[in-house]
């Protein structure tokens, strides 16, 4: 990979100076893709290290996907106790936007910023596919530029992706509109009630198993109506957060 940063292909007007942190844990895989997505949305990506308790005054944080600590013990269980996570928990409680993608979602549940947990896929296989899902909540910090009911497609790749929670928690999530995404067409991992992503009561913390950062630039995304690899539905996550920062 070249050391030079790509020029942002899409610039959102009026968000000059937004800084979005991307945390790298040992075993994180998608930190560079997440940072690239941030830049393509028109913001500055700030690399954060798990062992550093400072978030360097960023405006929002992305916990990217991967296999932090090899998924040992439980996915996300050890990362949850990283110094950077104490800062993320504090900032999230203060309203800072936080997005957890895949392993990042698992870290958010282990850190109790989001309810439920992820267990092994019901079919026991690693799954990697272009996954359709329906946007159920278009009012969170990370989804406000989607429409409710919109069908989007972004890549999904995981082994421990089955979202589970007790019935009471699931009813609460549904009743409070905190189910943000639901799998469409096929439930790829046995997740309860087809849930692909959820948010906290404030709407600033969002976690999901599929990967928006892999669908941010035409030519490198999933298939769409425009043709092969043209899908850029993931970019809207990152432009949404910039929009929420402007209006905060």
């Amino acid at each position, binding site marked *: 990979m070249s050391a030079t940063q790509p020029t942002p292909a899409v610039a959102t007007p009026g968000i000059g100076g937004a800084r979005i942190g991307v945390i790298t844990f040992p075993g994180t895989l998608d930190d560079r893709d997440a940072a690239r997505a941030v830049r393509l949305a028109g913001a500055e990506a700030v690399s954060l290290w798990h062992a550093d308790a400072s978030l360097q005054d960023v405006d929002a944080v992305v916990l990217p996907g991967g296999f932090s600590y090899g998924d040992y013990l439980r996915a996300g269980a050890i990362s949850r106790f990283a110094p950077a996570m104490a800062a993320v928990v504090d900032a999230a409680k203060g309203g800072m936007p936080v997005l957890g993608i895949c392993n990042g979602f698992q870290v958010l549940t282990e850190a109790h910023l989001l309810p439920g947990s992820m267990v092994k896929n019901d079919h026991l296989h690693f799954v990697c596919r272009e996954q359709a899902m329906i946007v159920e909540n278009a009012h969170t910090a990370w989804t406000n530029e989607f429409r409710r009911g919109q069908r989007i497609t972004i890549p999904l790749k995981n082994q421990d992706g089955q979202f589970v929670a*007790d019935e009471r928690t699931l009813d609460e999530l549904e009743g409070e509109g905190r189910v943000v995404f639901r799998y469409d067409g096929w439930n790829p991992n046995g997740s309860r009630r087809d849930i692909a992503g959820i948010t906290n009561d404030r709407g600033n913390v969002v976690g999901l198993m599929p990967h928006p950062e892999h669908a941010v630039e035409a030519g490198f995304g999933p298939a769409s109506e425009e043709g092969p690899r043209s899908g850029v539905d993931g970019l809207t996550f990152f432009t949404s957060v910039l929009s929420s920062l402007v209006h905060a």
Partner: protein
Amino acid sequence: MGRVVVEVMPKPEILDPQGKAVVGALPRLGFTQFSGVRQGKRFELEVDGEVTPEILAAAQEAAATLLSNPVIEDVVSVTDASAEVTDAAVNA
């Protein structure tokens, strides 16, 4: 040397995909007696001295905070297993 053993199991209401895979494999080897399998975890925590009540309490706290996730798992036991270590030393 002392040892504390912590055992963690998936909650009964959580479908255990690994256990399900194992119960599917058993009959293929002729083990038709078993109708269900649940797979859990056993942690062996070593301590340099004896297992005191304080150490057992610390192990209980570690079991509840790090070794298990109460959303999906139960801590089924936290026990002083120092005798096992001694037995092993004798047998060796």
